[in-house]
């Protein structure tokens, strides 16, 4: 099913007695233009060497080494509490590893942390969506944070199956719809590295398929993705690496 079909399907649905004003969406026009980032094929973007992480006196993982190159997708798997989110937060520069080093483009992360942050899109465990704000207002916030100018957010939300829900506070949306609003950021970000904590949570099958398809586009552009998920990726990625974290006592 094409994306425009999904949005048309949603347009037909009724949402209680709310009468949203539908924007005119030209489905033939490519809606989102990507600002290209410089890509060197196979360039090492993130390099982890002998990482260790200790939380509450428990060693989550130690001596963890891996490399993420341009075009790579790294799936971090493992049981609940195995340290997936902690690893992602390390990679996002939010906390420092207890041991080991992280390199970004072959330079120590601490030296180039601003460059790295400017090239990183991190969507964490929580959605990053304020419930009292509408989808449009939430998008405007993240757009401003990313420094991306304002194109047509109505079209973007329609593409994500949220047509007609643009002006409703997000606490009136379902969990999956909130997740879509949160992930909409990926459609306008110009960052090369995406770090996503459980992006498929609460999404329905069609949205998961759409997102995986979009991941493929990003990888083909030379982007890199690190994500955690409990679901198997249904799409075949050539550059997929799976990192299985064992639960340790």
């Amino acid at each position, binding site marked *: 099913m094409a994306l425009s079909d999904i949005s048309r399907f949603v347009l037909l649905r009724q949402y209680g007695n709310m009468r949203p004003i539908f924007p005119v969406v030209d489905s033939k026009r490519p809606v989102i233009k990507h600002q290209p980032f410089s890509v060197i094929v196979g360039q090492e973007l993130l390099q982890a060497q002998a990482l260790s992480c200790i939380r509450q006196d428990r060693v989550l993982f130690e001596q963890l080494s891996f490399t993420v190159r341009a075009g790579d997708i790294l799936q971090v798997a493992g049981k609940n509490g195995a340290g997936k989110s902690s690893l992602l*937060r390390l990679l*996002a*520069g*939010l*906390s*420092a590893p207890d041991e080991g080093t992280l390199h970004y483009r072959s330079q120590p992360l601490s030296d180039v*942390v*601003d460059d790295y*942050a*400017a090239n*990183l899109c*991190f*969507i*964490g*465990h*929580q*959605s*990053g*969506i*304020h*419930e*009292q*704000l509408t989808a449009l*207002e939430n998008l*405007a*916030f993240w*757009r*401003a*944070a*990313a*420094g991306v100018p304002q194109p047509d957010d109505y079209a973007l939300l329609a593409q994500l199956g949220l047509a007609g829900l643009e002006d409703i*506070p997000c606490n009136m949306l379902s969990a999956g719809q909130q997740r879509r609003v949160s992930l909409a950021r990926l459609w306008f970000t110009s960052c090369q590295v995406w770090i996503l904590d459980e992006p498929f949570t609460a999404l329905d099958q069609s949205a998961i398929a759409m997102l995986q398809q979009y991941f493929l586009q990003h990888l083909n552009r030379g982007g890199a993705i690190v994500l955690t998920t409990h679901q198997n990726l249904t799409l075949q990625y050539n550059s997929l690496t799976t990192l299985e974290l064992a639960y340790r006592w």
Partner: protein
Amino acid sequence: MVALATFLQRELRLLARQKADWLNPVLFFVIVLSLFPLGIGPEPNLLRIIAPGVIWIAALLSVLLAAERLFKDDYRNGVLEQLVATRQALWPFVFAKLISNWLSTGLPLVLLSPLVALLLNVDSASFLAMLLTLLLGTPLLSLLSVLGAALTVSADKGGILLALLILPLYIPLLIFASAAMEAAAMALPYYGQLAIMLAMLLVALALVPFAVNSALKINVS
């Protein structure tokens, strides 16, 4: 600058949608001050004498009431964490919080000052001093309460911790502001007190954003 404008717009929208967050402290201010004449008795001279201290204590407590929830929502729903990951975008966010906090807690106190002056029998000379001290003092109160809120954002029940952290920092302001009003009531010059308040405000304005920035980073990591 674009980010600051957008973030400020967001904060103001949130204020418009969560009116209780800022109306309650303002109402608290008015109610406390209207109870004083009732409790102490309609003795105009006595009211005039206690007015400076009472007004400023009520202002401090009302600003403190508004402080706790400043970053709570953004912490809980992950906005803060993801903003810290972007690094640059945290600055405009902090300034937007500061400005919106003053607009919602400081400015109403300044606007309500004529009513308060009426309730506590403040004469016209002291009223001018009260207006000036509120204008200079409330931005400082906002700066300090944003700092306190940033430091305690990850604490579950941060309210009492916030009060313990921030009230001592309010005390110099309380002393100089009420001293300025007392001097005005005795028809003495009070520029000295105002100048010190301005100095405190400028120092806080220069340093507090850095502290808030660091405090937020520490709290999400």
